[in-house]
């Protein structure tokens, strides 16, 4: 069932998100260095954030695309 799959994907994404901003991973990126002229921690957090939002949009929109649009509400 489509909804179950979406639901599983979202929970997996949530866990990934929790992991991404967890202190141990932050500690890994807390280095005084630059990536693409940007501080590593700043770059990592925004990249991870953008990735989370992107995946979120992908999962939701993929589901919407596969689900027939319901008749408009009155």
């Amino acid at each position, binding site marked *: *069932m489509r*909804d*179950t799959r*979406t*639901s599983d994907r*979202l*929970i997996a*994404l*949530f866990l990934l*998100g*929790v992991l991404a*901003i967890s*202190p141990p991973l*932050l*500690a890994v990126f*807390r*280095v*005084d260095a*630059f990536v693409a*002229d*940007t*501080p*590593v*921690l*700043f770059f990592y*957090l*925004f990249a991870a*954030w*953008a990735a*989370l*939002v992107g995946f*979120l*949009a992908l999962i*939701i*929109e993929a*589901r*919407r695309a596969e689900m027939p649009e*319901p008749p408009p*509400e009155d």
Partner: protein
Amino acid sequence: MLPAWLILVSAFGYLCLLFAIAYWGDKRADAGRSVVASPYIYALSIAVYCTAWTFYGSVGRAATSGIDFLPIYLGPTLVAILWWHLMRKILRISKSNRITSIADFIASRYGKSQLLGGLVTIIAVIVITPYIALQLKGVSASYQVLSYYPEIVMPGNQRDDSILKDTALYVAALMAAFAMLYGTRHIDATERHDGMVAAIAFESIIKLVAFVAVGAFVTWAMFDGFADIFARAAARPDIVPLFTSVGSAGYGGWVTLTLLSMAAILFLPRQFQVLVVENVNERHLDKAVWLFPLYLLLINIFVLPIALAGLLSFDKGTVDPDTFVLTLPMLDRDPLLALFAFIGGLSAATGMVIVETIALSTMVCNDLVMPILLRLRWLRLTERGDLTRLLINIRRASIVFILFLGYLYFHFIGGSYALVTIGLLSFAAVAQFAPAIIGGMYWRRGTRSGALAGLTLGFIVWAYTLLLPSFVRSGWLPSDLLISGPWEVELLNPYALFGLTGFDPLSHALFWSMVFNIGSYVLISLITRQTPTERVQATRFVEAYQPAGGGERGPQWRGQAAYRDLYALVARFIGRSRASRAFEDYADSRGLNLAKVSVADASMLQFTERLLAGAIGAASARVMVASAVQGENVGLDEVMAILDEASQVIEYSRQLETKSLELEQASAELRAANMRLKELDRLKDDFMATVTHELRTPLTSIRSFSEILHDNPAVPPEQRQEFLGIITKESERLTRLINQVLDLAKIEAGQFDWQIRPVEPRAVIDDAVAAVSQLFKDKAVALTADVPGNLPPVTADRDQLMQVIMNLLSNAVKFSPAQTGQVTISAAATSDGVEVRVRDNGPGIASEHRELIFEKFRQVGDTLTNKPEGSGLGLPISKRIIEHFNGRIWVESEPGRGATFAFVVPVAHEPLMAAAK
């Protein structure tokens, strides 16, 4: 130059634009073409999360402690991922329960508890009003900074004390007007405020565009792109630590902020208002799930660059980092951008103030003021039909009250530490709602007492570990409280409760408040019982969510039931007439034709449940209705819990059933007895009528022959002799009849003088045959006796036994044809006693008459034309005599083949000889 009037006119113009948008939104809604029915407007309205605190404060935080402004937005992003599960369930619950605020939600879950609703409202007002004050402060401060353009002067240095010159007052007044106009248009609080939402969405666009514009300007106009800012910052040893800092509170603070913001995005009153109450369509949530985090991401991209640019551009300590968004454009002499930044901050502040005030006013009105007013009996509110005007006025008064309170906070303690930190403090307070709400949605067992205890303790610990220290830091309480604890008890130190050290104050407070909150919620829930209402509400909340998705307003009852069954169910409890009337009223109100309704829909099921609940209680009503519904899933747990309670009821009803069964039996017996009495009465009447008739016939003939003899002395002697013979015969008949009636009456009354002793049957039969032999000769009917000599003696009254045999023999001869008649009397010993049979070859007796002939005066045959001789009392008397001997009499016959009358009399046990002595 940037004259003050231009700033004021812009600000005023912007607010007027908000009014216009809200007006337009409401007009569109009234016309049925809602502008807010769009996932984009919905997502933008959720961005009311970003307040002036975000607009100005994020940069300030980034400038002092690096990246730790981010958890406030990362938390909501994580929650947004879960919205698909969590918020859909909240939406489903709220729509089916008509929930209008966070206080309503908690109160409704725990058995519609007014106490809980009131408690949540009070907590919300206490912690949110200072938050509103903070927004007013943001507006006021930003106005003051801007008003000195092009000079850059910090607000604290140029305080203007006149209240009338205080922009915050006017902003507050305008906000109150806006909230009253567009937040209380309808009284049905589940109706949405389209105009307000449209204005809020517009504000979200303005603040995003303003912030991004300032960020882009700073990054690319004042500096040479991100790389330039970072490179220059990297050269400053005092700024470099910010690149790797996660805030002064370390990882603990990072996690705490993330958790607090996760709770805030769900349970702040304004978030609940836009997310749940103003939600038009559940499907809008799908897009908002990723649009809202995207919004947060966009509005945060330029935070660190602006913070770094500010630190690079101003001398350390001269300019408050909280004003960088405003002062950087001012530094570059760009008045219009500075004005736009000011408007952006204004939009962030006003958006928050409007929604928060409306949300709080709904709570204050519905969960605090109205319950109290309704309890004041002398107001007689319950007797008033229309309370809408009163409700609107209470809400408007609440709006004014809340905003005025917010303004007072700002005016009198505006610069205090307490106010500056209230943002995070209110997050921590709102987090106290989380256990009761999340627990209530997923844990059926959570009780009202548990929620009350959790909320109260959590709030007290919050106040003790966060609010109290903030008072100390504002200088209102002695500072040694935070060092050595109250009354020198170090274990009670608000910053190190029970000796817990090593955490930042916020984490420390969150930990202890949650320990007390969750701990008491779970513990008290486990040791207290739910009332039936609580149980029903718990079920409605926990089971509201169906992963398959479905109807917009998920009905409480799924599945179908036959109307017939529902009617029968209700009729059982409240009676047929009341049930019919109730369903007819219901059908009338919905324009249904009951005759055509075969399958009941969800609302009819709900109606049935309500109807039943009045008679048997809500919990049982649910189970009863469920029994009639096909396809309704009631969880096993719930059924078990309800059965717990229902079993007692069932026991009672079983006892009742037994009682009523006994009553029914008794009344059936009474009815039977009554019938018997009536029958006896009728029989008595029949008997009287028959007896009189039977007496009259011989009397008539005696009288008429006597009269002939009396009136005609010249009657010839032979004829006279003949007449006298008839008179004698009729007199004998009359005597016999009277004797028989008397005998019968005596037997029935039990007064007959029985001479019971062992009797030799053969001798009796011989005597009887001899006595009636004349009758046989008269009619020329052959009589054969077949009686063995060795019959055992029987227990009987000899004369009466002979009477019975004579009766049977005379009956036999009576019904046998003359000349060809054949009557046989036989006797034999059987296991029951001695059986005597009298057989004739007369017309026989139809089977339906075989019992009747033993009743008094029941003669078989057409009594008018073919009246047999005899009184009709012979067989009834015989029956009673035989039965008195403990014997049995019956008839065997087939019509046309004669009849056999037989009786059996028990054998005497004492020897004949002994008795004969």
